[in-house]
């Protein structure tokens, strides 16, 4: 950050004591978001943070902006009202795998398909934390929790696949502990017009510790983090020895030496057809083994709020501003004389 920056990270901190468990991945995400917001030339009062219920949903209390801590699962719906009412605001939705994918799944998919002007941060820790450790819609099959003592028999959601299937125009994934990448993803999402979903793998060190160990452990991470970079062949591994090919079978991991670099898939997030992004999202069904991180999809679609403003302007142009006296006479009138 340069000296001329308008804000410091501290400008976005509140006087409220942060009450996540020590070591929670939420602290890192909070710092990333505050750092990113401080880097922007956007009035602090124009940011609104909206959350549902859950550990992640305490987030707005710690952001010195406008904020609403709302009803379990309903943050995308409430944020939709804010963003539609005032398109000049920058609206952030903070949700989790339980809040956003279980109780609030309906609102999430509809906010995405409408391309509402919302930046949605989905903290995925694959567990219910606030209620102390029950399996979530992203928990792996077989997971033993207090409510699945014999192992979960629910098949999990892949949040990126779900978002792509919901017509989302921007979908990305990052890791809580990688602040630089998180900030890069926040920036890409914020600069995209309309709805964006950023899945953040977030470690719950109390109820689901090391869920992302394949992607975070220094011995395994290089072989498991598939960085998606726009316009570049998708290669990864300590020596970039692995790559991804996409064909009619889908996307799969190969050794570059087997196919040659020319046959490795070159990533284009702006591909209008979401099928390739979807194929990439299916390389892993969770943070197990090689898993893509980065922007899966970033296409231009007019936002709901912008089109609505255009319709209103067109109506005012065509009919003139609203005339109340004329409105109540629009169905025909008659006069009764005294």
């Amino acid at each position: 950050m340069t000296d001329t920056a308008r804000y410091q990270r501290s400008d976005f901190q509140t006087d409220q004591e942060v009450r996540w468990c020590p070591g929670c991945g939420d602290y890192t995400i909070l710092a990333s978001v505050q750092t990113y917001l401080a880097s922007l030339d956007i009035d602090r009062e124009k940011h609104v943070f909206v959350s549902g219920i859950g550990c992640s949903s305490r987030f707005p209390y710690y952001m010195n902006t406008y904020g609403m801590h709302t009803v379990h699962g309903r943050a995308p719906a409430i944020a939709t009202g804010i963003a539609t009412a005032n398109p000049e605001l920058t609206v952030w939705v903070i949700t989790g795998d339980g809040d956003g994918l279980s109780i609030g799944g309906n609102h999430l998919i509809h906010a995405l398909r409408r391309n509402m002007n919302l930046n949605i941060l989905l903290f995925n820790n694959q567990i219910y934390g606030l209620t102390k450790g029950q399996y979530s819609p992203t928990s792996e099959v077989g997971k033993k929790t207090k409510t699945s003592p014999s192992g979960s028999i629910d098949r999990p959601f892949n949040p990126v696949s779900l978002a792509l299937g919901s017509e989302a125009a921007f979908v990305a994934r990052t890791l809580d502990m990688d602040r630089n990448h998180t900030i890069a993803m926040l920036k890409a999402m914020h600069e995209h017009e309309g709805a964006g979903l950023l899945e953040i793998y977030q470690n719950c060190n109390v109820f689901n510790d090391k869920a992302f160990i394949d992607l975070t452990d220094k011995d395994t991470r290089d072989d498991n983090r598939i960085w998606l970079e726009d316009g570049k062949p998708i290669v990864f591994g300590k020596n970039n020895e692995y790559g991804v090919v996409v064909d009619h079978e889908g996307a799969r991991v190969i050794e570059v030496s087997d196919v040659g670099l020319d046959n490795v898939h070159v990533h284009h997030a702006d591909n209008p057809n979401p099928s390739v992004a979807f194929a990439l999202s299916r390389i892993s069904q969770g943070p197990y083994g090689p898993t893509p991180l980065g922007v899966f999809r970033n296409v231009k679609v007019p936002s709901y709020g912008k089109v609505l403003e255009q319709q209103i302007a067109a109506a005012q142009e065509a009919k003139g501003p609203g005339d109340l006296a004329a409105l109540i006479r629009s169905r025909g009138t008659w006069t009764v004389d005294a």
Partner: protein
Amino acid sequence: MSDETLTEAKPEPQQIEDVVIRFAGDSGDGMQLAGTQFTASSALFGNDLATLPNFPAEIRAPAGTIAGVSSFQVHIADWDVLTPGDSPDCLVAMNPAALKAHLHDLVKGGLLIINSDAFEDRNLVKAGYETNPLEDGSLDAYQVITAPMDELTKIAVEDSGVKGRATLRSKNFFALGLMSWIYQRPLDPVIEWIGSKFGTDTPVGNANELALRAGYNFGITTESFHKTFVIKPASLPAGEYTNVVGNTATAWGLVAAADKAKLPLFIGSYPITPATTILEELARHKNFGVKSFQAEDEIAGIGSALGAAFAGRLAVTTTSGPGLALKSETLSLALMIELPLIVVDIQRGGPSTGLPTKVEQSDLLFAMYGRHGESPLPIVSTSAPSDAFDAAFEAARIALKFMTPVILLTDGYIATSSEPWRLPDVDALPDISVPFASVDEDGDPFLPYLRDPITMARPWAIPGQAGMEHRVGGLEKDATTGNVSYDPDNHETMTHTRQDKIARIADDIPDVSVHGEGDELLVLGWGSTYGAIRTAVNRITRKGRPVAHAHLRYLNPMPKNLGEVLGRYKQVLIPEINMGQLSRLIRAEFLIPTVSFNRIQGQPMRAREIETQINKLLDGEDVE
């Protein structure tokens, strides 16, 4: 037939004070349209009127069956009518099922207009007739006029360009034409409407006009009709009138409230019968800056509205019974974070899907108590289509002034029926704007829960306003700072605060007024029973028995003088289209005995039923 005999065949119209007409037919027969147009021309003619549409929940129930019958009742008069009438004086039956479903309501000796073409074996069986009522003498008690409407319509529209079975779609206009002749309604308004709806010189427009004229001429040329009727214009209070449907008036009241609040209107709603037409009406008025959002469900409807309220808009969500249940959780959040929000509930028959297209008053206790925790809310109700504009405006005024969600209760009868409404002077409507919060000049921090000493409203600071960034949420708030607080005493303080704030609204609403005489009996009502109660009370008063009527617009809090009013009467009768919900509230609040009269049939209360109960009470008998 020569012109001379034609003239002779047309008798002088008989002047009558009022008539109740019911159009009934298959739900595909266009009876709602025929009734609406008959109503529109009567309104423009200057009659007072009240209507009652009644249709099945299915869009196309099986043709020819009782379940598929749709009807539209209109009461037109040269005096100030308040109800669509208890029993029709004239029934138009387009098929046997319509006759079977509605004949029992027709007054003895009433006029029965029948489409004889529909009375063939198959339709008779579908309606459950063993013999043809047109032939078996079962209609002898009525004045029956039959017309082969299918055949005559087909002939009439031959040159319209409409072909085949589609020609029969115009038979509702034939019936309308015939009724226009019998009751001496002008055709011009209908023809004008046909032009605007279907275009001039289009096949469908032509067919409808030809069928309309054919029906009218059928009346002139046949000798079936021994008399026609005329109803003089009503002597209503001077002013400019329109014929308004309740949901339209509700929508307009909200547009007016936004205008007078100097705020853009936002409506977030999910389609649900019979509330949908408010969303539809508001969606048309984008030039007023109205933002309408059709949400993915009821929860998102209220959620988006609450978001818009936080962003500083006049926010509304509309719904009906089952939808109100879904909104309950977010409504609790709205009252916890104390934002203005209007929830319009069009009550319909319940529980569950119940009777989606029919009226009931059974959401009162749900509106009052249907939330988790101690969660008081103001409740405003409307009594008639002509009252809905004012009620919606008032709900918005209270929401803004007291920073609270407000429930506006209307019902399925008010929603769909229409009556003349004397237009208000919109320039004279009060300014209901409230200032947004402003930054403290001394530099003190913004406290979102610091209250107005009189209204107890908290300040409304909206995103985009610098220096007042704050967080609201469902967790309990510290009474002073607004920060999250788990303190036991604070929770008790806040619980009382939320209750007191709503209770104080009583200081801001008018006293309930009493119509009528004596100290024997007060009939207390709320909502759409207004017309029936007032009609019954007036009839009994005219017969020399003293009785009084009071009607509540405000259900929570109730007017401050209500206890004193109730105490003046020996008996209090409360008619409701439910199992006695207001009665329970009154008993609990004022510890007085009340007499409930309840009808739960999905139909508006009838004046005659209430009249009977009043007479019983005055005679010292028990009510039903």
